[in-house]
């Protein structure tokens, strides 16, 4: 069940180069959101009609935290929000992570795929190791330490393992039964292949361009291995059946 709300900006911080951290006060959205779900944020400039999907980074009662990178017109507008601003949002949207797992977990976050993993790391009740991959500048890494052992990989080698999250796994000899990942497509592909090669369960969060953000327009599909029960073709809606998928059920 998704809600349309006018949320209020409680605080805004810049936590890295172009990365912003905003807390909103919501009516129901924060209470109902689970890890892996996202919300739709609408521009005040109505020439930008379509919502921007942003993952739930954390919730606290009726407070919702979004962490995003300002990459284009819409997210630049959001980066200029001020405390007290009223913002149209809709959600929570999508199918999040299954939290029933009790087996040893490896949580991977890459770049701007890191924020949603904070909520997962907080809510998942099992032994957890967390591997965060950055280009160079770190953000949110200290907050993850509350929830598990944190390992870092940076492309430029300025912190932790030089390279990507799987380089860190190799270098440090990390191992677990279940993998969770959100990040750029090459990383997700590598983790899917790793999971298959090592016979592990893996759950990955996908991105696709969205128009309705609620399952009605069929803009946001990904390719599925089997015929999907809703679409009756090998397409699944990232906004509805996803964004979190079993890595084995999607072709990426």
């Amino acid at each position, binding site marked *: 069940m*998704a809600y*349309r709300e006018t949320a209020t900006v409680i605080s805004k911080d810049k936590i890295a180069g172009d990365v912003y951290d905003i807390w909103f006060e919501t009516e129901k959205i924060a209470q109902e959101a689970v890890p892996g779900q996202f919300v739709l944020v609408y521009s005040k400039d109505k020439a930008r*009609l*379509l919502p921007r999907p942003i993952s739930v980074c954390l919730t606290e009662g009726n407070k919702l935290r979004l962490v995003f990178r300002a990459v284009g017109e819409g997210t630049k507008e959001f980066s200029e929000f001020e405390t007290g601003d009223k913002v149209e949002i809709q959600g929570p949207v999508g199918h999040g992570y299954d939290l029933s797992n009790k087996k040893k977990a490896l949580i991977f976050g890459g770049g701007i795929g890191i924020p949603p993993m904070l909520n997962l790391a907080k809510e998942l009740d099992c032994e957890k190791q967390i591997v965060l991959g950055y280009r160079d500048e770190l953000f949110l890494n200290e907050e993850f330490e509350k929830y598990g052992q944190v390992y870092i990989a940076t492309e430029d080698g300025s912190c932790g393992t030089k390279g990507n999250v799987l380089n860190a796994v190799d270098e440090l000899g990390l191992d677990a039964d279940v993998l969770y990942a959100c990040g750029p497509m090459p990383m997700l592909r590598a983790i899917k292949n790793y999971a298959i090669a090592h016979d592990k369960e893996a759950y990955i969060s996908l991105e696709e361009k969205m*128009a309705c953000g*609620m399952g*009605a*327009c*069929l803009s946001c*599909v990904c390719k599925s291995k089997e015929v999907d029960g809703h679409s009756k073709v090998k397409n699944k809606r990232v906004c509805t059946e996803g964004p979190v998928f079993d890595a084995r059920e999607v072709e990426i």
Partner: protein
Amino acid sequence: MAEANMKINIAGIEWKNPVTVASGTFGSGMEFSQFFDLSKLGAITTKGVAITPWEGNPTPRMAETRGGMLNAIGLQNPGLDTFIERDVDFLKAYDTVKIVNVCGHSEEEYVEAVERLATVDDVDMLEINISCPNVKEGGIAFGTQPEAARKITEAVKKVAKQPVIMKLSPNVTSIADMARACEAGGADALSLINTITGMKIDVNRRTFAIANKTGGMSGPAVKPVAVRMVYEVAHATSLPIIGMGGIASAYDALEFIMAGATAVSVGTANFNDPFTTLKVIDGIRQFMEEKGIKDLAEIRGCVG
């Protein structure tokens, strides 16, 4: 204050108000039903459906543009069997007119779909999307040649049980000729406009923003083109018109009605606000009450 009569009648089917949704922007209403009671709509128009499931186009399938968007979904649909079992069944619970939008790759596919739908109760009207690629004619849409449009209208009308709305593409030299061709073929009503073919290039990636290269443009940015076309069609035929293209407010809808439309559809604006249709319905009622308009016929085509 005048009691506003919002009822309209298209080809013998009464709608409680003149507002429906544009095909493809509302699914079959399931997702929107979490936000409001679908019975408040004059009609529900479903996403295009064909006799067999269609995969649609590769992604990205859409790109935002200023005041609008491009889409190339490629008419992904689950096929008529699932559609009838699941979607038509879902819609039964709602007290509103049900319009099924039909697509096909060939005349035979359209005819087969319409024949199949003739046996289905709870479908009140058919909307025939003739902007689909005609595989037999090398991918050219039925919707761009008057003769092809007349033929397909005739073929569909022969087997249809429900009134037939022919949906016109704006990507033509003369929309009036297309409208007259559908009228000659026996259409009961017309709807327009479908999307306008456009293109967006992602400068950073140095390639097309959508995988299909071109996409159909919709949203507020297309409204003036749509209003002009509704006006031309209203003057070219005597068929009732369902007007659409960029409607996001009651005033937008009223423009179409004053240009000659009997009803209107809200499409892309649903993506900005799922409650847009309700706001349009309330806004039209309020306008009628404030201006002492008792029946929409008083302002339909009033611009002359």
